[in-house]
């Protein structure tokens, strides 16, 4: 089977892989790079748990043809920690009990990061909009929204 060589930046590190035709970015990240943080939930664009940032923009890795990220920068949950220290969003999610089964959490965090990277002080409505493509089937949206707001205000709880 013919494979295509593909190079891109994965969490700031250059990587090179060979992909089969039609391989999506989610499979490439999980099976070829070994980054298990993005999850498979639907393969349809309905759940958001495979969300990653491509050149800083929120994308669904399961609907992204792997070859489309050639030469671009892909950021996943695996890359947002600062060394051993949690990213403020990760800390806020933990402090606000914003995870139950944890399966939507990687996508939620990336969607939240995409928001805060361009809008550091979002309103509650903007947070809701930002995570509207991400399904939490344990229905823990309130703590998730609170966590994003808490991270945005530097850990200070907002009304």
């Amino acid at each position, binding site marked *: *089977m*013919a494979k*295509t060589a593909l190079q891109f930046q994965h969490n700031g590190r250059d990587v090179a892989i060979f992909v*089969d*035709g*039609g391989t*999506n970015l989610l499979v490439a990240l999980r099976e070829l790079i070994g980054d298990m943080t993005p999850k498979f939930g639907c*393969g*349809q*664009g309905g759940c*958001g748990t495979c*969300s990653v940032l491509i050149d800083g*923009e*929120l*994308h*669904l890795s*399961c*609907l*992204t*043809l792997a*070859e*489309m990220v050639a030469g671009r920068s892909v950021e996943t949950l695996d890359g947002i920690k600062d060394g051993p220290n949690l990213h403020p969003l990760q800390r806020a999610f933990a402090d606000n009990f914003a995870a139950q089964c944890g399966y939507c959490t990687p996508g939620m965090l990336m*969607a939240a990061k*995409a*928001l805060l990277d361009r809008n550091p002080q979002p309103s509650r409505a903007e947070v*809701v*909009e*930002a*995570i*509207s*493509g*991400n399904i939490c089937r344990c229905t823990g949206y309130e703590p998730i929204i609170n966590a994003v707001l808490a991270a945005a205000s530097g850990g200070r709880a907002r009304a």
Partner: protein
Amino acid sequence: MPVTVKTFTSTHDAAAALSSDHSARYLGGGTLVMRALNEGDISISTVVRASDQAMTRVDASGSRITLGAGVTFARILAERDLAFLHAPARSIGGPAVRNMGTVGGNLFAPVPYGDFTVAMLALDAVVSVQGGLGGREIALEEFLQSRDRQAGTLVLAISFAKPGSADAFRYRKIARIKPKGGAVITLAAHLPVNGSRIVGARVALGSMAPTPIRARAAERALEGRALDASAINSAASAAVEGTSPGDNALASAWYRREIVGVHLRRLLSGQE
């Protein structure tokens, strides 16, 4: 057979590759084709891409607007000149889907998707396509009527006249989940007014047929009249004429027929 990806710099070559291979699909934002591959659709064995910059061009400066087929909904939301299209663009998916999904791909999106196309249909849009033999323009309505046979055509762009006033174009998507969700039904209307009378009324409906359709009876009820209670009533009661909605998990055909007039009335009378 494994999937082969073919990337071309010229749209002409991409179009030729598409038209010569029944198993080829053009990959825009990925929300339809990648989904089909993920779900095991083995009828697709070639994925065609084009890297031509023209595919992502937005020309919104004049009275006639042209959107490249590869323009994303996020891009439309970033264009101030396209403010009248922000409602349909925002009604699609979450932020990630809007960063990926394209205007061209939306023309092919099946029920309960394809909301942007409903807006385009109400604006009498024209689709520029590149076939194996050359380029041509085709009215959107005609394009949609033959959509099953268009998989081998490459859509380059879509163009339409900018509405004369902000009030002339209206859009409404009925979904069960807010702010995101597939459509129960989608409605768009373009009501240009000459003096106090509507001239060239267009009403388009999504999820009321296998593709977006025009509600011609409702258009006739509005044509040449002022947008008053009486005209709105006649349009609302005519809305269901000529529709053929289906059942899906979001709503039954019966329900769609019941509510289409109600929502057209609200759209026309400016109610929330």
